[in-house]
């Protein structure tokens, strides 16, 4: 579903964000990207939805050669992907319903499909009863659920999450994590970049660790820290 081969990313200011990264993510996988701030987790996700362009290497997402993608084909790629951020990126002057519908409407979807699809995803994330509320009237967890509903409304095969629980308390974090898991069980490939040790350690899913722009480990059922479970503390 996602394949990177020898991918490097050097920003115009000379910073080498990713260095010769290769990674395969299969259909229906659930993958955590972990690592300190600035190790390239977000950069890797940005490459996948073509917010950044690889300096070298080959990237395939859902059969699309992203590294060779022409600018005017980027919208088509993004319709195959859902993206969720730490800061939700909701439009504050639109209701939850309008925010979710917006993602379909701006891609020219038929009103009939919007009317059918929006209630479905709102139900999936458990926000049906708050669909008429504005983002400012919701808790952080609810806002993130609205953002996830928006990311899913176009039925993407892949959901990319960049620190989805970064702004949430533990209770909401647990809820969002459970929601992501539910989405994954329905067959969607989920990639989560996170700092949150608790989430990673509880889920015990595939963990890809980045350090200084390189993948250092890739474990099938990993922990946040290499070889350590929750509650254990690194010495030093």
């Amino acid at each position, binding site marked *: 579903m996602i394949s990177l081969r020898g991918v490097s990313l050097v920003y115009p200011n000379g910073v080498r964000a990713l260095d010769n990264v290769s990674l395969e993510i299969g259909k229906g996988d659930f993958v955590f990207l972990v690592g300190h701030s600035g190790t390239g987790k977000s950069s890797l996700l940005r490459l996948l939805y073509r917010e950044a362009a690889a300096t070298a290497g080959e990237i395939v997402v859902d059969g699309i050669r992203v590294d060779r993608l022409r600018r005017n084909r980027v*919208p*088509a790629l993004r319709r195959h992907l859902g993206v969720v951020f730490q800061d939700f*990126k909701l439009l504050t002057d639109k209701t939850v319903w309008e925010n979710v519908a*917006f993602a379909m*409407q*701006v*891609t*020219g979807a*038929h009103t009939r499909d919007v009317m059918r699809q929006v209630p479905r995803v709102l139900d999936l994330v458990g926000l049906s009863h708050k669909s008429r509320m504005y983002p400012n009237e919701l808790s952080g967890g609810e806002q993130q659920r609205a953002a996830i509903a928006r990311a899913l409304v*176009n039925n993407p095969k892949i959901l990319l999450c960049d620190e989805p629980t970064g702004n949430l308390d533990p209770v909401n974090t647990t809820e969002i994590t459970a929601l992501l898991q539910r989405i994954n069980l329905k067959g969607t490939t989920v990639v989560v970049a996170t700092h949150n040790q608790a989430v990673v350690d509880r889920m015990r899913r595939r963990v890809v660790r980045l350090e200084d722009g390189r993948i250092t480990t890739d474990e099938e059922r990993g922990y946040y820290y290499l070889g350590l479970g929750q509650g254990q503390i690194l010495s030093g």
Partner: protein
Amino acid sequence: MDSGKVKFFLGEVLRNFSRNTGMQLTAIGTVAITIVLLGLFLFVRAALADAGNKLLDQIEISAYLQPDATAAQAAAIGHFLVQDPRVASAQFVPKKQGLAELRARTRGSIDTALLTENPLPDKFRIKVRDPEQVEPVAATVRRLAGVDNVVYGQKIVQRLLALGAVLRRVGIGLILAFVGVASIIISNTIRLTVFARRREIAIMQLVGATNTYIRLPFICEGLVDGVIGALVALALLAGARATLWPRLLEALPWVQLTAMPVDARILAAQLILTGTAIGVLASWISVGRYLRT
């Protein structure tokens, strides 16, 4: 396009329009000022050209005959003038009539009774069809046998023709400059509204909206700004034309200005088209810059 889509789109345009009222007013005001200047310029240019043409129309060529010119020569000149397609009219003025006209024109300030003989030569009074042809016709007539001297308002003709040429040349440059300046100001104004909506644009790009789709509401906005601005300008111009122009005509009776030197409908259409073009062009440029980054 289903009705829901249209409703969503119009809703977005309207929402954006009402949210940035201040900036919309700035853009509309800029278009209005530009169009007023442009309209004034076009109107005054037409009025000046019109007045100039009228002056030129009145210019006549006086071809004085040699004192010893024969009647046959005079007849030949008359025949030649009538056949020349450039000549609108040619009138033979015998010296007697010339003296009478002189007497009438000077209203007795010269006592012609003191003259023992008529010092005036016979002459032809010639009018041409096209002001541009005054000089060539005068040159042709001067070479005819029996013609002594040819007189016409050389300086006035030359100046008016030069003025016309300058107005035409400067006109196009000025209009381009007007439109350019207005487009820059409006594109900056619209860039502010684009900036105010950068979150929305980022989200649209994120969920896969095409650039054309993102651009469309802004283009519509620019178009509406341009049309409203042009309409405001037209109202101002019409007001000025109705109140100030007649007074100017009264104040300058010696300048032969026409009440309405241009076709109002054509001018209005030109101005509205220009306003619309400015609005669309400016928004296209400003959004384009944003989308490329």
